């Protein structure tokens, strides 16, 4: 019996054990339990025929115990649920997996994990080289997972600084970091140190070893020609040994047709039919191919991690009258920092004093500096170009926008695109299929057609190599990773392969008007009084709206402020969303309402109606000031379209995508603005109408919805692809499928073309991978190719796919960057 630390969490279990009805049976059960790690305080009851024990399920899950009992011929039935589950139902674990740096390695790990009971939410990140999962340790202790990983040839290290409990002594994890909070420093634990030379990596070592062995064997051939073969045999066996070990482990964990298995079989087969030299060459080329994959993954990773490096390491903390240099990581929310000209902003925050142009390109991809002053938000990593700023820290370093973007991108790697899932399924059939074909080719002609053994065995072995799906498995994730990385550097944040895939297929893009197509900063353009002065209309309307944060209200109160109008006191302010605001001002019940709502209350004079119509045809929003039911005047407000909105719509049209503007504005205003921009419009929509419109559009094809991510979150969620614009807000980042971190509408067209470029890239990759295979399949059967050419085909395809996917990293998108306004307010429309 294992004695264990009394502090270890243990489940108290009690079973009725059917069949344990003799003394020797009891003994047998007790002996079995003695050998179980983590079992303690065992009591067997002869009277009740029960077994009671305490079990540390992080070392032996209860399922294991039950299985062992059944193996001995007894059926346990639990008598009570374990008292208070003493283990987390599912621990969220995140491992950095050293050596898992190729697409097929990732697949191998995923397959192994899939065979373990109690695993869920498995996410592998191509960028971070991590494996994150929810693990029910009652079913599979983490030690099992880790030893399985090691058996496959990978070294897992748990992220979050929690040492894994060594099997020798118990230690459970109170601080089970669930990996989600590593946004800020996930890259810090990156094991293969950036800049680590290729020959120092696991794959690099294999290349060097197999290359050296091959060269030695070749030289040995000159010295002792009659023993040359032995040199090659040695080279093959030594080179193939690590592969064979991994292949065996994979087979044990439910993946008998791993790439390692194919190569091991082929290399050893070559030795057996007397082609040891070719076997050694096969091992060498295979190692080269694997190395290339590792390099590709590293390149895509570096692109994202470069972003993380942009946040400065130190900050000038304002203390009393002076400043003190502190590490940026140590900044606390609420502290004040000073940012000097030319320095980078150390934390996400709000400007307290000073005005400066900030280059936000690290976050938004926008290279034109933006003027910001007190009250504006700044991002960690932005460059302060001219003025001195003091900034209040709003977010800790690990949670700033840039860290979250990196984290989101890394998470995106883990969500598989539909194509990737298809390829996974395909290779699951393809590889065994090839093995079967190669076995038939090797055996049928000699056995049944009287052909010679040697040439057909040779062909069979060559086919095994052709069956390696390396390049195929790599074709999708390499392109997706590169595509997402390229987008991020242009301020286009795409949260996952599925989103990246579907954006390119959209038939319609629906745009919310306010704050998306327009800057969301409406200004009062005209005030018309009916029997009262213009100033009086503005003064009363501003009073009614004084408590509202609605953009139209803000436009009116700003205009009153500009005219230095003192506002009277207000009571009983009430809003009817989308229709009117009422309040009691100077003893009168006043309301500011949409013309349509006003018309239901009173008959508007013809002259007033004509004025309203004129304003609306010019794309302005008109509101009516009423005293009870008597109209006092009209105020016209216009929200200008963004400078690049027109161009963005034209670009989308050129890409063959329909565009439609959704707005709560009245039809005339909506039409005026939409025709300026050259797009369709659906106006006078209440929030719930937008959902209906999206649903109707979905019937015709894939729909993307572009909005601010705040006011139209439901519409974004309803569409196939929700795109948040002027992102960076927590809500938008969380809810949208993609976010335009800059404020350019043209980003939507860029997303579409990036998605199409990525899909195109994937098609090429698959064509390279399968095309080369097909060619070599035919030439092998005709007897033109030899083994090392077959493996070279696979290595060559891997190299082509890698190089092709990396081309995407250089994707620049189209269109010049337009200057942009400072963070807009999220704005609902009110007609």
């Amino acid at each position, binding site marked *: 019996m294992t004695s264990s630390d009394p502090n270890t969490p243990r489940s108290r279990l009690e079973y009725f054990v059917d069949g344990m009805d003799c003394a020797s049976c009891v003994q047998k059960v007790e002996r079995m339990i003695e050998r179980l790690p983590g079992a303690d305080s065992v009591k067997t009851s002869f009277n009740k025929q029960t077994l009671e024990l305490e079990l540390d399920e992080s070392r032996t899950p209860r399922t294991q115990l039950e299985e062992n009992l059944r193996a001995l011929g007894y059926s346990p039935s639990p008598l009570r649920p374990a008292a208070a589950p003493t*283990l987390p139902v599912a621990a969220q674990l995140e491992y950095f997996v050293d050596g898992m740096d190729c697409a097929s390695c990732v697949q191998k790990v995923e397959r192994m994990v899939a065979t373990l009971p109690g695993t869920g939410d498995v996410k592998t990140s191509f960028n971070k080289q991590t494996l994150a999962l929810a693990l029910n340790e009652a079913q599979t202790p983490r030690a099992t997972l880790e030893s399985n990983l090691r058996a496959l040839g990978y070294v897992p290290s748990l992220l979050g600084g929690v040492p894994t409990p060594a099997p020798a002594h118990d230690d459970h994890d109170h601080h089970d970091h669930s990996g989600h909070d590593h946004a800020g420093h996930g890259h810090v634990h990156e094991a293969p140190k950036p800049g680590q030379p290729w020959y120092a990596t696991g794959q690099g070592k294999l290349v060097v070893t197999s290359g050296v062995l091959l060269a030695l064997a070749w030289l040995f051939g000159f010295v002792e020609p009659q023993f040359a073969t032995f040199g090659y045999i040695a080279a093959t066996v030594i080179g193939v040994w690590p592969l064979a070990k991994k292949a065996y482990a994979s087979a044990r964990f439910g993946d008998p047709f791993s790439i390692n298995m194919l190569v091991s079989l082929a290399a050893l087969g070559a030795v057996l039919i007397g082609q040891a030299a070719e076997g050694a060459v096969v091992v060498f080329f295979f190692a080269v191919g694997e190395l290339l994959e590792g390099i590709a993954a590293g390149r895509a990773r570096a692109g994202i991690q470069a972003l993380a490096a942009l946040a400065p390491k130190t900050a000038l903390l304002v203390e009393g009258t002076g400043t003190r240099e502190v590490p940026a990581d140590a900044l606390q929310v609420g502290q004040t920092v000073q940012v000097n000209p030319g320095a980078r902003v150390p934390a996400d925050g709000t400007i307290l004093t000073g005005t400066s142009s900030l280059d936000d390109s690290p976050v938004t991809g926008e290279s034109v500096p933006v003027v910001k002053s007190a009250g504006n938000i700044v991002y960690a990593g932005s460059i302060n170009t001219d003025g001195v700023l003091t900034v209040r820290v709003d977010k800790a370093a690990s*949670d700033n926008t840039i860290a979250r973007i990196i984290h989101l991108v890394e998470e995106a790697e883990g969500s598989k695109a539909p194509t990737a899932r298809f390829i996974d399924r395909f290779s699951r059939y393809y590889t065994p299929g090839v093995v079967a074909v190669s076995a038939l080719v090797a055996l049928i002609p000699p056995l049944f057609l009287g052909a010679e053994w040697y040439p057909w065995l040779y062909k069979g072995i060559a086919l095994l190599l052709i069956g390696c799906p390396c390049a195929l498995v790599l074709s999708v994730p390499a392109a997706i990773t590169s595509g997402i990385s390229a987008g991020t550097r242009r301020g286009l944040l795409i949260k996952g392969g599925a989103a990246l895939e579907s954006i390119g297929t959209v038939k319609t893009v629906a745009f919310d008007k306010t704050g998306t197509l327009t800057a969301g900063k409406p200004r009062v353009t005209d005030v018309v009084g009916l029997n009262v002065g213009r100033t009086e209309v503005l003064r009363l309307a501003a009073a009614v709206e004084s408590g509202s944060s609605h953009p139209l209200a803000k436009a009116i109160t700003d205009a009153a402020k500009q005219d230095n109008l003192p506002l009277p006191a207000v009571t009983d302010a009430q809003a009817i969303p989308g229709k009117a605001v009422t309040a009691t001002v100077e003893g009168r019940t006043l309301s500011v309402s949409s013309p349509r709502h006003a018309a239901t209350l009173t008959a508007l004079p013809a002259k007033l109606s004509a004025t309203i119509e004129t304003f609306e045809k010019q794309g302005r929003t008109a509101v009516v000031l009423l005293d009870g039911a008597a109209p006092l005047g009209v105020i016209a407000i216009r929200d200008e379209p963004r400078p690049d909105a027109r161009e963005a719509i034209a670009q989308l049209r050129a890409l063959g995508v329909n565009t439609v503007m959704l707005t709560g504005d009245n039809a005339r205003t909506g039409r005026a603005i939409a025709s300026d921009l050259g797009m369709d419009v659906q106006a006078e929509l209440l929030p719930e109408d937008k959902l209906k419109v999206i649903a109707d559009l979905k019937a015709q094809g894939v729909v993307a919805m572009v909005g601010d*991510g705040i006011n139209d979150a439901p519409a974004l969620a309803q569409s196939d692809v929700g795109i948040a614009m002027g992102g960076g807000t927590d809500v938008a980042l969380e809810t949208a499928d993609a976010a335009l971190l800059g404020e350019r509408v043209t980003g939507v067209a860029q997303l579409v073309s990036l998605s199409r470029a990525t899909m195109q890239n994937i098609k090429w990759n698959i064509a390279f991978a399968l095309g080369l295979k097909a060619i070599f399949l035919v030439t092998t059967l005709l007897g033109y190719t030899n083994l090392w050419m077959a493996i070279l085909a696979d290595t060559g395809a891997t190299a082509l796919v890698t190089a092709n996917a990396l081309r995407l990293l250089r994707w620049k998108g189209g269109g010049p960057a337009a200057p942009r306004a400072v963070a807009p307010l999220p704005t609902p429309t009110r007609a």
Partner: protein
Amino acid sequence: MPEITLYTVPNCADCQAVKRLLTSHGATFTEKNVRGDPGALAEMQARADVRIAPVTVIGGQVCSGPFAEQRPQILAALRGGSALS
């Protein structure tokens, strides 16, 4: 996993964001719409002393306010929940 209750209202971006956050962390939660459900509203007020959705109750911890404020608290509570209680 501690018990999680999320009080929401329809068409609320912050509520959506909290839902996505919880879902992306594999947390299961009970959602209660407090608009037009006086019982749920009373329950929310009793637990959080606020009338504004979203309110997220994780185990014994109550988070309210805009998503940006709740997010770190929710993450911390989820982490606390994935360790031993």
